[in-house]
């Protein structure tokens, strides 16, 4: 609760919706707010009544930027909404940032109004923030399925500490709108035409259903790249993250970094001067900057200058000194000039012709500490960038201190 535990001293609390967001139908806004109130009334003796004029205990509004209190909104993202503890005047009021995209769905393209309203109304009733991950009153927005949403126990404990338990006769909904479950829709479901990278026939199934052990002597990788000084090793949906900032290898999944990317990359490389990493899967590629996927992607690999006969890339590595990127396809490699964004003449060439001793395909490639590392199965070749000669051979997982 807030300091001094402010609460409504009555069980009948009124609310009024002052205006609406244009992002949603008015009926959907009203339903989201009513459902949010119902969450709290179902576990307390409180009853909520909507009023349409005059002063209500809880005034609900959408606005952007400065909106008449000391806490201006900040544009898209960041702060989504805020609400005041019970009290007169502004007390209890809930404000929603109109610069956000409000939705009744649980998607990555907007914020679910029901979830945010339920949280804010918790403040309106006297609850502060909870540090219990998963609680409704946790301060961070977490998208989740709102069908049959139940108030977490931490929130129930909090609100009942202020208002007690519901009366036996109060089992019926007390809001103007009975709770209805909106139909959830994923962005993919909302799209009538499935984009090519999501067509089942073109998706390579994950190569590894279970994460291999770090020191598995047979461990191989689909792709390896640097990213802002860290090194990421990919296999199936899994990522091994080697960072100068932590002593241990971090284990992650591709979806935890880039939820919309399909797992099972074929190749990846970083152009660190542009703070950009390119990921390749089948005949498409994506550009990311940190966690953000750049707009306009995926693009077909033919946009880089590959003929249509090339259907996928095995590996890619960028040389920051020459600004060239080498793409490995079968037993050949191509050289791409990052300055001119075009393939160099005279390519493809046989890998073995220039990189003597590499007489096979390259699964993944990495440029690190001024050297190339070519991965093939459980083996890895350290290669001098200038002379293109093999310096030594190691296990692919030599980076994991096995």
């Amino acid at each position, binding site marked *: 609760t*807030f*300091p001094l535990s402010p609460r409504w001293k009555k069980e009948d609390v009124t609310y009024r919706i002052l205006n609406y967001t244009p992002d949603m139908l008015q009926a959907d806004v009203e339903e989201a707010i009513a459902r949010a109130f119902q969450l709290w009334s179902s576990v307390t003796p409180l009853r909520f009544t909507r009023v349409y004029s005059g002063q209500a205990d809880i005034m609900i509004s959408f606005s952007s930027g400065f909106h008449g209190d*000391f*806490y201006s*909104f900040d544009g898209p*993202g*960041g*702060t*989504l*909404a*805020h*609400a*005041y*503890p019970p009290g007169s005047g502004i007390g209890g009021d809930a404000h929603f940032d109109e610069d*956000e995209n409000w939705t009744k769905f649980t998607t990555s393209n907007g*914020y679910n109004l029901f979830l*945010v309203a339920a*949280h*804010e109304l918790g*403040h309106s009733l006297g609850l*502060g*923030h909870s*540090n219990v*991950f998963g609680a409704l009153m946790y*301060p*961070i*927005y977490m998208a989740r399925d709102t069908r049959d949403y139940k108030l977490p126990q931490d929130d129930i404990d909090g609100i009942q500490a202020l208002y007690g338990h519901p009366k036996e006769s109060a089992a019926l909904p007390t809001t103007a709108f009975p709770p209805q479950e909106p139909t959830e829709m994923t962005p993919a479901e909302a799209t009538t035409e499935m984009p090519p990278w999501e067509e089942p026939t073109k998706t390579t199934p994950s190569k590894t259903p279970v994460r291999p052990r770090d020191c598995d002597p047979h461990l191989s990788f689909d792709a390896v790249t640097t*990213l*802002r*000084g*860290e090194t990421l090793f990919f296999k199936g949906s899994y990522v091994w993250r080697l*960072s100068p*900032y932590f002593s241990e290898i971090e284990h992650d999944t591709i979806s935890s*970094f880039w939820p919309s990317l399909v797992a099972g990359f074929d190749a990846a490389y970083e152009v660190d001067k542009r*703070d950009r990493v390119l990921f390749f899967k089948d005949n498409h590629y994506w550009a990311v900057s*940190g*966690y953000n996927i750049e707009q306009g992607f995926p693009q077909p690999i033919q946009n880089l200058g590959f003929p249509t006969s090339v259907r996928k890339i095995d590996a890619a590595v960028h040389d920051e000194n020459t600004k060239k990127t080498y793409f490995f396809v079968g037993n050949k490699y191509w050289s791409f000039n990052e300055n001119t964004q075009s393939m160099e003449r005279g390519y493809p060439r046989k890998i073995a012709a220039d990189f003597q001793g590499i007489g096979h395909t390259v699964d993944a490639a990495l440029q690190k500490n001024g050297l190339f590392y070519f991965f093939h199965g459980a083996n890895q070749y350290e290669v001098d960038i200038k002379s293109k000669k093999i310096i030594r051979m190691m296990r692919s997982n030599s980076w994991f201190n096995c």
Partner: protein
Amino acid sequence: FPVVPEKEKEEMQFAKKYLENFYDFKEGKSSLFKAKDLNPMSDKIREMQSFFGLEVTGELNHKTLDMMKKPRCGIPDIRSYS
């Protein structure tokens, strides 16, 4: 992920604003009883890391910054509106 170097200053400003908004951080605020208050932001970062269950280092590492950048409610975590 770590921030790109040219963004570091910008990120520090962002973190400062975040701590001012949600953790009652006031620049220049020092305790009479503390002889050395070299980095007043560290205490607030620790407070924030502790609240979110992050490793408490007092440093603005990438996990802390990532948490600060997540969309959230505008109510402060450790004090009430005044």
